[in-house]
């Protein structure tokens, strides 16, 4: 009975507009989506279950109440059940790992899956931090995963090229994009998800307002970064456009 857990992160829609008020990104008016990179991990999990290598696949999230919609999105794609740990929104990956770790331990899964990089903190830290909290091995940038008995073989995109890692279960796996296009929810899936329960958990360390694990990282300020671009558009005869482009690059003071 091998169980898998998919971590579901809710992020501000990467395609949507971002507003900043009071030196913080405005979250009340933002649209949120399930982190696109976590969808690749979820796809990997669903395939493992379809191949019979996992018998149950759960969704686990940490965040404010609105994060429920991310868990529901996972349920609509085929997760068996979902849990949300109620917490404030700007947890650092290290803090989130501490809170997720407690819940993961109680479920005793063989594998925890999540996307390689999350686009709100712009960070790869959650996977390895969670593995450390659990005392488990971790493999990142995985494009292929096969479970064999009590071990797992993972193909990973390392700094210099593809490598294969052989790890003992239980294990934390962070996935690369492109392990196959993530599936879209079916109508039947959405209907079924409405009947599935999202279990709410309150982390013991949240009640008192203090986090365990020593010093907290504080976010001081956030401001929009918009690189100034000239936005010049060139159209017309290719030869003339090419001459014009090269001329402009030569005269561009930023390239001299």
């Amino acid at each position, binding site marked *: 009975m091998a169980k898998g857990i998919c971590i579901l992160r809710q992020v*501000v829609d*990467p*395609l949507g507009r*971002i507003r900043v008020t009071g030196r913080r*990104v405005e979250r009340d008016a933002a649209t949120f989506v399930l982190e696109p*990179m976590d969808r690749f991990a979820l796809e990997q999990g669903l395939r493992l279950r379809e191949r019979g290598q996992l018998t149950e696949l759960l969704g686990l999230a940490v965040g404010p109440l609105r994060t429920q919609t991310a868990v529901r999105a996972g349920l609509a794609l085929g997760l068996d059940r979902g849990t949300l740990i109620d917490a404030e929104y700007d947890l*650092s*990956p290290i803090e989130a*790992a501490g809170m997720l770790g407690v819940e993961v331990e109680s479920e005793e899964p063989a594998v925890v899956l999540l996307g*390689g*990089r999350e*686009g*709100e903190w*712009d*960070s*790869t830290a*959650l996977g*390895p931090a969670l593995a*450390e909290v659990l*005392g488990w*091995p*971790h493999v*990142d940038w995985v494009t292929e995963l096969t479970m064999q008995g009590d071990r797992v*073989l993972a193909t990973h995109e*390392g*700094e*210099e*090229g593809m*490598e*294969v*890692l052989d*790890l*003992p279960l239980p294990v934390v796996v962070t996935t690369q*994009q*492109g392990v196959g296009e993530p599936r879209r929810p079916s109508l039947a899936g959405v209907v079924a998800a409405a009947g599935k329960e999202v279990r709410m958990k309150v982390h013991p360390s949240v009640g008192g307002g203090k986090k365990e*694990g*020593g*010093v907290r*990282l*504080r*976010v*001081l*300020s*956030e401001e*929009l970064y*918009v*690189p100034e*671009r000239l*936005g*010049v*558009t*060139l159209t017309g005869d290719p*030869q003339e*456009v*090419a001459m014009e482009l*090269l001329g402009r*690059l030569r005269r561009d003071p*930023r*390239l*001299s």
Partner: protein
Amino acid sequence: MILLVAHSREGRLLPESLQAITAARSLSEAFGAPLRAVLLGADTVRVAQELTQFVPHVYVASHAKLARFCSEPWTAVVCQVARASGAEAVVIPGVRSGLSYAPRVAVRLGMPLMDEVVELRRVGRDLSARRAAFLARVNQWVATQGLSSVITTKVDAFPEALSTGVGKVEAVEPRLRPEDMRVVLNPGFDAREDPISRTGARPNQGGGLRTIVAGGRGVGGSEGFRRFVEPLARALAGAVGATRPPVDEGWRPFVDQIGQTGRTVAPDLYVALGISGAAQHVCGITHSRVVVAINRDAGAPIFRHSDYGVVGDLEEVVPSLLRVIQAAGSPFRSEELTEAPALDGGTEP
């Protein structure tokens, strides 16, 4: 004390290690804390020598099991040295391997993690850092209490450090427990073989006027990379990059990939061919100095992120560009051509 972890490849420090040294030195000055470095590996003599030119005190942890990078033994040894030396902050280059174990070090040492910082500042008694968030659309300042933190430095955010003299080397005996060695790298390969399938060149190495020519789905296939992306990269003395779809399709190796799940680059000139401009790609190029986009689709989002956008077919625009560059003798002024570095990416052997 500030502990820098040096990463190397083939007997040389990585440029990203030299960048991290710059960041660590600035911390050392701001907090009046001495800087030391640790080097891990199996064959460390040459790199240790090189490292002492930048850092006055170098710990060397040499062990056969450290010949190849693996996050668990690395975590164990870095924490061992950090504890024994009383490190208040640990600085790690934000390359893929560094990012894969820095969070473990932070959790194990009970320190906050400041990952992929681009600027460090002392504010009162505390350390504050600037980093990118929201797919590089937001600059975020974070702070910790005092100096205590594990820091990874964003690739290409800090200049490479200059050599300062000759420091000393102190050997450390790595203590590796069985649980640090439970991951088997490349099972079935013996030590003499190279288990890594190296199929590509890395973009954007070296100094000078740095150019990257990258292709997206609109390039049409590996043939399109050969016909458009590679020749233009050669003509501009640049390297080749790609978005994720060409990597997924097997047109390019993933080491060429730029974006959220690939590399972040900051060249002087970035040329995007057939790239639509998805947020997951654009976040990897926002610090490029000048961005040129060539795309058939006038509505492609990439044009909103470009200085110069050419709406046109690669079949027509790229050959024209190549002719114009060839006629001019060089892409830019001729004196720049003599200074242009030989980049190791982008050209077929």
